[in-house]
């Protein structure tokens, strides 16, 4: 839908929004319900902000950019991973809407998760700028080198939340970190220690723990396609092994003993 079509639609009604609440001093988590006035293009984030402003100022949530560029407002809407800022209530079916924090990370407060352990999964401080692959017909000025742009991954954690292996096994580094590693290998800015990165990925808590559910790719709001990148990473790992002339080891050497 173009922006103009969005502007044209402005019906007004209300939606029942159920919000996950958790405060440390208030005991276990519970759900609050609110009746929120919505227009045709009211987003989940706007609904949550309305609740903050008009009904409960103690509701805590993360948000920053409001246009799917910062990745802070990731939540689960009716059980599916979404960026609240670009998810119109009209797009998540009719009836009651349930908003929960993303899964597989500690919940600090209401809808706020602690991103520390998400960031710690990444192999190293990572570049956020890369060459732009858009507008290939553009004639880049000599003094610029190449047009560049920000990485697609906005570190929202939705892929980690959607991953069934991460839901089960906390030691798995998860899709975002592996997708990042693959991008660094694919578009090496010349600063990458490739062997160290491949060693990092070649672990039973990394590339080989993925079970090809592809839920990360489904969840990603930024078209990073982490699952495909994990598969590409495995290809890199196999190629390295082949290049190093390693034969498939004996069964006996397989076992961890």
């Amino acid at each position, binding site marked *: 839908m173009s922006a103009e079509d969005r502007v044209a639609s402005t019906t007004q009604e209300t939606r029942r929004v159920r919000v996950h609440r958790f405060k440390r*001093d208030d005991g276990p988590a519970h759900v609050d319900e609110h009746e929120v006035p919505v227009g045709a293009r009211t987003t989940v984030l706007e609904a949550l902000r309305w609740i903050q402003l008009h009904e409960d100022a103690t509701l805590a949530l993360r948000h920053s950019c409001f246009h799917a560029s910062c990745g802070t407002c990731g939540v689960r809407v009716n059980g*599916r991973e979404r960026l609240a800022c670009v998810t119109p209530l009209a797009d998540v079916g009719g009836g009651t809407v349930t908003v929960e924090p993303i899964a597989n990370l500690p919940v*600090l407060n209401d809808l706020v998760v602690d991103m520390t352990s998400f960031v710690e999964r990444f192999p190293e401080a990572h570049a956020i700028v890369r060459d732009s692959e858009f507008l290939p017909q553009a004639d880049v000025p000599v003094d610029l080198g190449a047009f560049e742009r920000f990485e697609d991954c906005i570190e929202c954690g939705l892929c980690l939340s959607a991953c069934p292996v991460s839901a089960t096994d906390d030691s798995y580094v998860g899709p975002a970190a592996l997708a990042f590693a693959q991008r660094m290998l694919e578009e090496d800015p010349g600063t990458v220690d490739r062997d160290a990165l491949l060693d990092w990925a070649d672990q039973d808590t990394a590339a080989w723990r993925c*079970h090809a*559910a592809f*839920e990360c790719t489904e969840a990603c709001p930024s078209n990073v396609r982490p699952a495909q990148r994990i598969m*590409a990473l495995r290809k890199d790992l*196999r190629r390295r092994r082949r290049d190093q002339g390693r034969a498939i080891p004996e069964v006996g050497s397989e076992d961890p003993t």
Partner: protein
Amino acid sequence: MSERRTEDQTPSGVEEILRVRSAEGPVERKSPGPTAWFDVRRRGTGHFAFSLNRITGLGLVFYLYLHLAVLSQLLGGEAAWNGFLETATTPLFLGLDVLLVFGLLAHGLNGLRVALIGSGFVPNRQKALFYTLMTFGAILLIYSAIHVFTAEG
């Protein structure tokens, strides 16, 4: 600077907040583990496939040992074995046989998908592959069920 209040007041408020926040206990965290397999709020095909693989896998390991235990009857000679055969051909046990075939097909065919995709074949068509293999499995399951219940000596 005589009214500087740093030492007596500053830390109190800040440190109290920091202390409470860094306390281990009251952070809500669904403990990870196999309960996630049964999380019905996760409705994705991929999650279903993963859970199915885990559950059928465990079921098949259980069956493997059940099977080996049952086969020990063979060591007891003809009478022991033929006695077992009578129980094993009751409709209940035949139904369990069909369940076994279901487990083998679900685990085997989804495992084939994971192996094919995980080793670089068909990287972008995982859903189509899943549905194709599951459809194939369903046909085989129906055929097997009919066979198990109708094959007469």
